[in-house]
């Protein structure tokens, strides 16, 4: 057969090929572009602030958008990972009292991890009140049931003495599942705290250890930094949808709670805490452990040094 290619068909084919290439390049560009930035030899540090401004905005959507601002959760969670989410479920209190991480945020984060192909998602916290009551009343139990995530109870067989190598804490019992995770996501709620002035991301690691925890208050800021250094999470997402502005960390009345509709996402613990501390009208260096965290080199509260992004919904 004679395969004569006319000029017209040649042009058509060329157009098709180049157009397809252009289209594919265009659609793939943002992701590829970002990946080249984030996957560089030097980890870029970022801080994203998500604001829910619309009436009745969806917390789930806001969480998703906050992650999308830095390329989506697939940048951090890979297929087959065991992800441990560490919320703050210290108290057996209703979610609206802001003593515990907002279950809607928790649910959204777990959903994202599962979409990213995580093999297992676990919720783990060493609570202050009875864990059964904490998980039930705070909504974390319901989230686990709904999403199929594992709820890890702080059992004595899961506490294990480990070398922390901190300035104040050398050897201390640690809640093992957090150490054994492939990816660790810190998901605290932003609260006032009598002694440490605020409890945000780094303070949340007190709920990741066992032993005589009440003795940790004797040098609380140093110990928070020691623990933050040891646990060093993949990501910190601070839930400031509702914050506790006084009578922390337990609260108990709706008048202790202020609505901020904010999420702070960062891969720098100190910066995330610094950003969240501003919601309380404090400057970061006023908070002992944020100040010490920078001094120790865990991160910076000088947010100018980071990629700052804002998502408004």
């Amino acid at each position: 057969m004679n395969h004569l290619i006319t000029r017209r068909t040649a042009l058509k084919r060329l157009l098709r090929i180049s157009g397809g290439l252009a289209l594919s390049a265009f659609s793939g560009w943002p992701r590829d572009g970002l990946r080249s930035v984030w996957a560089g030899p030097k980890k870029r540090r970022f801080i994203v602030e998500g604001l829910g401004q619309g009436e009745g905005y969806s917390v789930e959507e806001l969480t998703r958008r906050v992650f999308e601002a830095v390329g989506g959760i697939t940048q951090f969670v890979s297929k087959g990972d065991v992800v441990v989410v560490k919320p703050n479920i210290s108290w057996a209190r209703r979610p609206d009292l802001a003593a515990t991480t907002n279950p809607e945020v928790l649910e959204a984060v777990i959903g994202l991890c599962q979409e990213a192909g995580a093999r297992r998602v676990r919720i783990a916290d060493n609570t202050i009140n009875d864990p059964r009551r904490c998980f039930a009343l705070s909504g974390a139990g319901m989230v686990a049931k709904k999403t199929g995530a594992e709820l890890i109870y702080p059992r004595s067989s899961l506490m294990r003495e480990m070398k922390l190598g901190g300035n104040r804490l050398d050897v201390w019992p640690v809640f093992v599942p957090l150490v054994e995770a492939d990816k660790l996501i810190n998901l605290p709620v932003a609260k006032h705290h009598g002694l440490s002035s605020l409890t945000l991301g780094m303070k949340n690691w007190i709920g990741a250890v066992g032993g005589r925890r009440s003795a940790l208050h004797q040098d609380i800021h140093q110990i928070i930094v020691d623990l933050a250094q040891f646990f060093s999470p993949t990501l910190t997402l601070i839930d400031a949808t509702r914050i506790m502005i006084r009578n922390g960390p337990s609260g108990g009345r709706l008048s202790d709670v202020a609505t901020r509709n904010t999420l702070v996402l960062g891969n720098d613990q100190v910066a995330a805490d610094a950003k969240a501390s501003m919601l309380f009208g404090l400057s970061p260096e006023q908070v002992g452990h944020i100040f010490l965290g920078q001094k120790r080199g865990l991160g910076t509260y000088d947010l100018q040094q980071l990629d700052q992004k804002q998502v408004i919904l």
Partner: protein
Amino acid sequence: MKATHLVWIRRISQGFFLVLFLFLLIESRLPQDIYLRYSLVFLSEQDLRIGWPVAFFFQLDPLIWLSSLLSGHHLIKGFWWGIALILMTLFLGRVFCGFICPLGTVHHVVSWFRPALKGQRMIEANQKSPSQKVKYFLLSSLLVGALIGLNLTGLIDPISLFFRSLALAVLPGLGVGLKEIFDWMAKTDVRILNQLSYGAEVLVSPVFGYGYQSYQSAWFIGIIFLITILLNRIRPRFWCRVLCPLGALLGIFSRFSILRLEKDLEKCTNCKLCTEGCQGAASPIPGQHWENAECLMCFNCFDFCPEGALSFRFTWHPKLNKKPDMGRRALLTGLLAGISIPLLGRLDGQVHKASEPRLIRPPGSSTEKDFLRLCQRCGLCMKVCPTNVINPTIGEAGMAGFWTPHLIMTQGYCEYTCTLCGSVCPTGAIREISAREKIERPIRIGSVYVDRGRCLPWSGNGPCIVCEELCPTSPKAIYFRKEVVPGADGKGKLVPLPYVDLKRCVGCGICEYKCPVKGRPAIRVISAGESRSLKNQILL
């Protein structure tokens, strides 16, 4: 119906009720898989409750119902079960003892598996003996005592005794043993053992509940239980024959029973197999008068008789059954004991005068006077308490309050929004309250004071303030002020010092429980300020 069938029906029924009892006992704890829809929790205060009727056997026990009515003038929840049981006893005799009572079943099984005596000696042991009057003495002293104002029924009521023994001694004993094994497995560096330890812990936790419970004086509860079991070596079902006050009560009602043992003297060859198998020493042999009040309705005699000389039949007689052999002296002594024990119990002045500072009753408890009238000392509140703070008293409530519940804040604390103990209390000695009532009223169980000599910041040993952090009230009852305190080097240190606002303190004790000063915490709860008492107050 054939006798063997009857005996098998009895065994199945005994097994069923024993399993039911154990199941409800195990379910008497906060389950791990309680989920509340958080969107619902948003709008309402929700109280966590146990989904099973864990007080069922206490409601079925007419002695508990009767003693609370006589003593506290209070009809307990679900009392119609007890009434139904009495009605059943009126027609059928002590079938509760033979078919239902879980403690009776345990004694039955123990006596049957390892009979202590054989042949002639067993026949002799199964002759009715005067010691069987003891239970009537106990019953009369308990009921008279209850009427006068001290309800000691639960100490020897079979359901309370069995529940208390299993919940406070047997299960925690097994739990402690397992914990040692699991902890050892978790500590090793062998990964598979670590994982096995966790897995085993998850597996057994539905039985032992979350965490490992421990109770003061549980060793004593356990020993008493062992003794009641070992008594079966002297005579089969010794407890049921000689001691059980519930058996005595049901025995009295059985006088009207229409299910009777019919004896045929003609057929009897006097082989005495019926007496050898008799569980209640109720004189089943033809020629003796059947003691229906002692008969546990086990149907062994009916089953064992090779000649068919014995049978149980429903017969309508205008004549009543034989009067229970209570003994006038036993009843009179019982009356005397019943009058004197409540009075002796008040001699320490706890009810009317001084209040023991360590006697911290669960939230929702009635006044001390009413508490002693209603509490069955069954241990249900102690079993369900998620923090293990509720313990049996030894001397804190005086002799009258022995083994009643009180809170030991070094063992746990009362959770601010938890109201579980009152929701299960079978007699209402602890009233059912809601979390909202507990917080808003508030219901105080005591108040707290700082021991400045031991407190770390007050004594110049550095900052701490754990108590303030954990204080659950809003605004916090424990607050701090930053002040300069001289340290050991003589230099002043600026530290936050804890203070207590008595108006806000509810006495929950989380501060005492979590205080880093171990041994004797630097902040302690005393009963003063408890809502249930008008006298035991501090503030105007």
